[in-house]
């Protein structure tokens, strides 16, 4: 993994005096979150594990430099998304069909499992970059500017991709259960 010659915004050298974490601490702390982002990018938990492992393995030798950046998270997120996109470019995409994730005891049963499976199918209909935009904007909650920095494109491009992606997904049955209803409270952000 090569650092850009000119650091993009968010990839500036750190200004804080706090000692940045060592690689193991950083990677272990980010692992669940990165895995979930990769899951939404790939649609498959196995592929997600591979993608995050490879991304972190590339980060490992570069960590002495990356840890000094202002936002190592932005760098890692960018690497994750680019590694995923390069899988498509190199046509090395491994396709996998898997039974649906088993229902967890605390979850809401088969209907919810069905909805989640539907959502992954819906995401799978988007082109890879558009899917990345949707995940960055609506799962990672990045601004258009931040998403543009991750993808190396203009905020306007992110805006149009997000709009197109949203238009494709809004009428998909996958989102029906999650439509806002009168009196329904917005759940607290429980993202892991």
């Amino acid at each position, binding site marked *: 993994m090569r650092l850009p010659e000119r650091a993009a915004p968010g990839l500036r050298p750190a200004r804080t005096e706090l000692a940045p974490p060592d690689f193991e601490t950083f990677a272990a702390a980010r692992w669940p979150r990165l895995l979930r982002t990769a899951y939404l990018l790939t649609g498959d938990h196995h592929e997600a594990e591979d993608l995050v492992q490879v991304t972190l393995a590339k980060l490992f030798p570069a960590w002495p430099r990356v840890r000094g950046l202002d936002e190592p998270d932005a760098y890692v997120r960018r690497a994750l998304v680019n590694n995923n996109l390069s899988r498509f470019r190199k046509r090395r995409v491994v396709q996998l*069909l898997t039974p649906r994730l088993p229902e967890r005891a605390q979850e809401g049963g088969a209907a919810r499992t069905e909805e989640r499976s539907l959502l992954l199918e819906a995401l799978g209909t988007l082109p890879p970059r558009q899917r990345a935009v949707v995940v960055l904007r609506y799962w990672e909650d990045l601004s258009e500017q931040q998403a543009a920095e991750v993808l190396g494109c203009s905020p306007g491009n992110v805006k149009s991709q997000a709009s197109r992606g949203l238009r494709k997904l809004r009428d998909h049955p996958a*989102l029906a259960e999650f439509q806002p209803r009168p009196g329904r409270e917005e759940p607290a952000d429980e993202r892991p």
Partner: protein
Amino acid sequence: MNAPDPGRPEDDAAASLRRALRATAGELAPPPYPAERVRRLGRRRVRTRRALVAVPAAVAAVLAAVAIALPQWPGGEGLPAADSAGGEALGPRATPSLAPAQPAAPSARPWPSVRTVGAGEPVEIGRGQVLTLGADQVCHRDTTEPGGGVEDTCKSVSDGNQAAGSVSIQSSGALLRPLYIGPGRAARMTVEVDGEVLRAQVLTLEGNPGYAVGYAWGSGVSFDGPTPKVRVSDAEGKLLAEFP
């Protein structure tokens, strides 16, 4: 980011999508962080990159020395061209498959016997592909990739993300790999693609590891087409799992 405006169709759709993404991603149970594996992969990447830089320089130096030392071949070329028709060219050599794709006639042929391998033992399955079975994961390496296949891609078989008693199927190029997880003793696996039934070679660990993998060679399956059908049975022919 603009402030959401509930009631606007786009904002409602965005809010719905956010909820749906949270619910879906939250469903995933992350396995423990594989620290040792990431470190190993990282170190291997460094070694490979150094080798990739060093080898071309060394080869260039040797070729230059040879070109100077050798007499010119008839026709003016310093070195003979590789005979591409002879199959021993400089490129990767095709390796015969251990479980070649065959036309469907399953009942006429004996089933390939289950191959029991040691944990961590790399198993060459042909065409430059290597599988390694472990107690908690199955790893795959494509040695035809640049650098000889630097990275294993490993799948956890114990993280609970694939239910017990089920089978999944993975394809990379022509390689089809069913993965059965469950208490049964898988002995037969078939993958049906476009009406063609392939018998997969089953690999397992000694004892009862709770899973088994198979491999077979198709003709570059795309899952965008008809969904492949996978069946896993034990030695008596009792169905253990099927997909879809």
